[in-house]
């Protein structure tokens, strides 16, 4: 942690947050919010939270910005002045003063930043994860082993939440009749990216395969370096979004259709939960991978390591496909044709 960098980033964070909320142009606000995400990801990387920073870089600075821009494109770009009386604003300011006063007062009792002996860092559970998890699982990345093994329930249901969000988007803006029409339209094969810019098209054709390969590497190598199912899944989903942005949504949907997306997303959860049930079937508790050493090679620790890889792959399936579904629906107002 370099305190000078830390301070500069904090100041810029507050400034970009204020700008993104002040700007009248909503497209500009979305872009400034992307910068905000990127700054906060630098801040987290500086504090040693590399996995969090990786996720934020892919999600906040990448996918969030794209779906915000998609919504601005389909609604209104400029927000008007406030016609209504600012009674709500006054009430809010009053609330902020009270809440801010309480929080700032409470911060006087917090341990200093970066204190290794603070209660949060000295808690037996956190200590155990640092000292014991490598012996238990032979996975060097402590975040991965805690995420996929010790707190497997948590991660399973977070994945379910992502899946449910995908279903929710379908329920909110999906247009069934337009979808059926699209199935018919898809019969005639349009040229890949016929109305796109040549330079953008060729660049994306080069970037997309590398991006997908990197995403697979991030999932597979999450045991030894920052990464894992969430980060790799977001990157893989981003590769399809890039394809849709450059060559048209139809082209991307031809490679990964929406129904296929939902099947794969469900597959991901079935892989994860099914692995937990397999542990139960072998006579242990749900998601207790240690029992699997009878069917996986390399002893108890290696069995837990391999199991983590499999559940991370399940997470990757769900996150990849649901992110693409979110983009595809938001970019077309649920019609799945046209696009940005």
């Amino acid at each position: 942690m370099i305190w000078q960098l830390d301070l500069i980033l904090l100041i810029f964070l507050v400034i970009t947050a204020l700008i993104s909320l002040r700007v009248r142009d909503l497209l500009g606000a979305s872009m400034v919010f992307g910068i905000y995400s990127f700054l906060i990801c630098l801040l987290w990387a500086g504090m040693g939270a590399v996995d969090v920073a990786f996720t934020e870089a892919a999600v906040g600075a990448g996918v969030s910005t794209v779906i915000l821009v998609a919504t601005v494109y389909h609604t209104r770009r400029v927000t008007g002045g406030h016609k209504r009386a600012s009674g709500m604003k006054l009430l809010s300011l009053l609330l902020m003063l009270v809440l801010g006063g309480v929080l700032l007062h409470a911060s006087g009792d917090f341990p200093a930043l970066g204190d290794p002996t603070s209660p949060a860092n000295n808690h037996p559970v956190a200590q155990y994860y640092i000292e014991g998890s490598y012996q238990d699982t032979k996975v060097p990345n402590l975040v991965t082993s805690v995420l996929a093994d010790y707190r497997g329930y948590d991660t399973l249901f977070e994945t379910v939440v992502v899946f449910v969000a995908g279903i929710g988007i379908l329920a909110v803006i999906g247009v069934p009749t337009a979808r059926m029409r699209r199935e018919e339209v898809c019969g005639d094969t349009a040229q890949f990216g016929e109305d796109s810019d040549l330079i953008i098209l060729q660049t994306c054709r080069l970037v997309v395969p590398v991006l997908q390969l990197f995403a697979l590497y991030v999932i597979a190598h999450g045991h030894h370096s920052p990464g894992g199912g969430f980060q790799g899944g977001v990157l893989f989903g981003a590769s399809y979004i890039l394809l849709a942005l450059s060559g048209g949504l139809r082209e991307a949907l031809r490679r990964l259709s929406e129904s296929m997306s939902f099947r794969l997303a469900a597959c991901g959860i079935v892989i994860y939960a099914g692995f937990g049930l397999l542990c139960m079937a072998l006579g242990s508790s749900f998601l207790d991978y240690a029992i699997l050493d009878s069917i996986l090679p390399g002893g108890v620790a290696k069995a837990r390591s391999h199991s983590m890889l499999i559940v991370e792959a399940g997470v990757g399936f769900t996150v990849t496909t649901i992110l693409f579904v979110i983009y595809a629906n938001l970019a077309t107002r649920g019609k799945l044709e046209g696009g940005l």
Partner: protein
Amino acid sequence: MELLTLTAQFEWILGKSNYWASTVLLLIGLHAMISKNNLIKKLIGMSIFQTGIILFYVSAGAKHGAQIPIVHYGHDSHESHDKAAHAAEHAADAGQQVAEAAAPAANHAADATHTLGETLYANPLPHVLMLTAIVVGVATLGLALAMVQKVYAAYGSIEEDEVLDAIADSTADSTADNTVDSTVDRTVKGTPEA
């Protein structure tokens, strides 16, 4: 003496700066969610609120001079740990049964030297909790944006007051046929307050 207290004060401020920043971001986000008129601005406020909370958690898990939470195995670990690893490798070469016998011994040797005691690692627990929160955050943002598009399709606006007016108008229209004008006035006036 004077200088010393100044340095101490400065360090105290540095120790709190992240918590203060997270508080400020939290307040900015919450204020935007309550008082902004535009729905997309409200959602940006929600995301800023969320990052304020994540910043708080990550700051709580930070340690001065700590490594990132990825164990250095095989590089700077102790000798006996290396030996144990060697033993395990040899055993693996020798055959499955021997490996099973040697594995507990190797683990025990590593335990005894407490290989992780020397290097300070950042607390991985807040990282795990916040990592999943970010991905769930983008999913909820997507769902909320879908609702914004639906609102725009239904009322032709994403400004809160215009949407409320449109809702009031549509209720007024449906009741206008069989009610007196005073009812309509009350509906139109009453809704923005609610």
